[in-house]
């Protein structure tokens, strides 16, 4: 089951006012506000963690850590608009993923659990191999370059959205993306040639 844009749990938060209300409620410590934020942003945070770590269990652990950490730092969130809130969650996720890698937690190996029903096993296997190669190639990137690639190619954010949520200019994001793709291409080429 591939994540569907229309399946975002917090679809009821699409309205800016509702998101602002949820953020305000969360800042007051009200559970319903947190539940709304969880439903809306859990898939994005999970996708970010999985794209970064490549391990489902580790991604789930990191995603859980992100929401636990968010509870204690929600007071620092000033902007209740969606890009800002999403960027805030993803920023926490990025830090948690880096911590996870630094701690050297062993990847516990569940690559993929439920198989998507709309893909055949051969396609899934091929996809996993390709995805694994990309993650391997990303080892050569800086943390900022990885961040930009995940936002652009996994979360489908526009250049402007990435620039807004990472406090960079659009040109800087473009430059980061260009260098990152170049590095990934170079890293993938010899493997393909081999």
């Amino acid at each position, binding site marked *: 089951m591939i994540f569907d844009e229309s399946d975002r749990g917090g679809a009821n938060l699409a309205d800016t006012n509702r998101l602002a209300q949820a953020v305000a409620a969360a800042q007051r*410590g009200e559970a319903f506000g947190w539940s709304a934020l969880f439903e809306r942003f859990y898939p994005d945070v999970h996708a970010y963690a999985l794209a970064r770590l490549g391990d*489902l269990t580790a991604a789930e652990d990191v995603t*859980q850590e992100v929401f636990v950490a968010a*509870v204690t730092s929600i007071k620092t969130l000033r902007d209740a608009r969606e890009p800002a809130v999403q960027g805030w969650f993803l920023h926490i996720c990025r830090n948690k993923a880096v911590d996870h890698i630094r701690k050297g937690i062993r990847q516990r190996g569940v690559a993929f659990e439920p198989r998507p029903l709309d893909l055949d096993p051969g396609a899934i296997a091929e996809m996993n191999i390709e995805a694994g190669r*990309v*993650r391997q190639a990303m080892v050569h990137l800086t943390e900022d370059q990885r961040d930009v690639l995940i936002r652009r190619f996994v979360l489908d954010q526009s250049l402007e959205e990435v620039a807004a949520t990472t406090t960079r200019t659009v040109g800087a994001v473009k430059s980061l993306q260009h260098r990152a*793709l170049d590095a990934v291409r170079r890293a993938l080429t010899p493997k393909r040639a081999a």
Partner: protein
Amino acid sequence: MNEWIDPQLSVALDAWRLSSRRAPRRHARERAHDAMLDALIVAARRPVARGFLSFRRRFSHAGLIASAATVMAAAGVAAAGWNAPPGSALFVVRAARQGVMLKLPGADDIALHLEFAEQSLAEARDRINPAQSIADAANELGIAFTELSANPSSPLWPRYRIDDATLLSEETGLQQASQPSPPVATSPPPVGDRTPEPSEPVERTPRPRSSTNSSDPSPSDSGGSGDDGGGGGGDDGGGSSPSSSPGPSPTPDE
């Protein structure tokens, strides 16, 4: 995406995207939700402690500021009152300072009393609350005399005598200044009726050390002449004035 991407790289990125955007497992999602709500409960309890801590932090800052302000104010008062003239509001600081100086270990009490007396005499000379200054000087000299009596060979006796003489002159000056000026005489005064000369002895204010008059143990007294018999206080014409007792003690020449 504005950038053209190599088709092979694009395939790899798509695979990466698809594998990353898998739906999270239900139990993991529920576990994360529960953990978040647990953290929310813990965080809800924390504000009490945090509020107390922040109060303590604020209070400690306020305490530091108040302490610093108190120290600065105390230093300012001490500096202002260090040599406050008699009669001023800060004279208590000076009195306290003098008391502390006298209580310090190793302090020479006699020298200090003489020093305080000299300071009061200087103020009297400068007409700074002269009555009070003279009274203070007399008090200090009285105490100095009492303590000097126990040490006939003290080198401070000459200094004491000078101060006592100064006190006498200041007292005289004060008395003269306080007397009303005589009316302008239209006719010469009768013979034998004259105003006292300034040099004449004037009845002086009794000083606390009056009880020690007859026991002046100054070296000049006890130098062996002995003819005074310790009753020198009565031969200066001012026998009732204790302040003059040590001054006129007979010298060996006499």
